[in-house]
């Protein structure tokens, strides 16, 4: 009975995290590429995203609740908040990965007559890939943790146990949420680290 619910909520949790991380990557990676080409926009954007990161997650959920359309109690608000949190590590790592490409390598790419698009696709992105993937890994592990709080605004997932446990002062119930979440985080970390190594040159 409890076991079935653990499986169900774990799946829900994983789904929440997957959507958030995939969406955050889809937003952050192209934005980061744009930012590597525009120094001023880069300072502003990284600053703004940094600020979002410093808002305590519960407070952020609170801020989003009253917003029309996207706000309100429910999954979409939770996912939105998780996306906002996942943006920074991916954005920052992509920028660092690309701007960190050896200037001699970039110079010789330009000097050999590669276009900006070719340099991005064939030089910068492949060289930055391990760093970008590290950003995705950090975002994933963090999101698995943050997603437990999403239950407070109806996001579901393993946080459901945690909040129920707190309300009922039931340690076992809290653990039923916390332990699977921890296992999930450690597993994700290992798997993504393995992927990262595979794409290092």
């Amino acid at each position, binding site marked *: 009975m409890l076991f079935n619910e653990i499986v169900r909520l774990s799946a829900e949790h994983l789904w929440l995290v997957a959507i958030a991380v995939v969406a955050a990557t889809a937003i952050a990676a192209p934005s980061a590429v744009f930012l590597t080409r525009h120094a001023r926009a880069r300072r502003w954007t990284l600053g703004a995203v940094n600020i979002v990161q410093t808002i305590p997650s519960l407070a952020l959920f609170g801020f989003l609740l009253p917003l029309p359309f996207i706000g309100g109690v429910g999954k979409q608000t939770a996912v939105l908040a998780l996306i906002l949190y996942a943006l920074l590590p991916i954005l920052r790592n992509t920028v660092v990965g690309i701007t960190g490409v050896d200037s001699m*390598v970039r110079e*010789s790419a330009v*000097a*050999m*007559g590669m276009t900006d698009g070719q340099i991005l696709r064939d030089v910068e992105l*492949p*060289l930055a890939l391990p760093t970008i993937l590290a950003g995705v890994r950090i975002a994933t592990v963090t999101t698995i943790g943050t997603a437990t709080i999403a239950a407070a605004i109806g996001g579901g997932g393993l946080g459901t146990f945690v909040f129920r446990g707190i309300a009922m002062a039931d340690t076992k119930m809290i653990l039923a949420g916390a332990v699977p979440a921890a296992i999930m985080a450690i597993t994700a970390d290992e798997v993504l680290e393995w992927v990262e190594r595979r794409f290092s040159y």
Partner: protein
Amino acid sequence: MAALVEFRNVAYRVGDRDILRGIDLSIEQNETVVLLGRSGSGKTTLLRMVNRLLEPSAGEVLFAGRRIADQDRFRLRRRIGYVIQEGGLFPHATVAQNIGLVPKLEGWAEERIRTRVAELLDAVGLQPHVYAARYPRQLSGGEKQRVGIARALAADPPLLLLDEPFAALDPVTRFEMQQHFARLSRAFGKTALFVTHDIREALMLGTRIALLKDGRLELVARADEFPGATSQEALAFLATVTQSVTSNHDA
């Protein structure tokens, strides 16, 4: 014979600082012009204006008789081989992929690229079956430099630009590479602009030597006549050669 490259009254300014002023220089077909000068004299800056990594603040540069400012910069660059220290090789690409890069950009067929890569590896003294599949991190500095030269030669460009290509090598390897380069550029009939601050290298490899001092051309002379030059900076460079000979005798 028409000049392959021509600088006409070229200047380069950053803010209100003149880095290069009034440069007039031409590079004829099949000659190696060495740009000699102290650190900071503007050699790299001048070199980088030929393939439009930098644009002159005044004056113009011609390549094959046409202003480079009017030429498509990507096509121009693919016709000019460029060699820098340690080669600037792509760390994520094999030796073969590094060398085949410009031919690939130019749309050559796979088979033709493979043949060309093997031919070039042979030409720079690296056995294709040993080196083709290696990554740059698996090469010594000297081997990287050879690959860098092979890469610059890949699409058979009419002009080579080299910026202190051998500076990071040990003296013996450097000497071997210099001789190798001299042979190669004769064999391939290459025109080259070669930057160095090493007078011996300049004398050994140059058809002519262009001496830069504080962003101005102090002297352009044939390499065999350079030792007789009397300008102040030329004497300063020549002194480093005679000086080291003298100290050898003292020892």
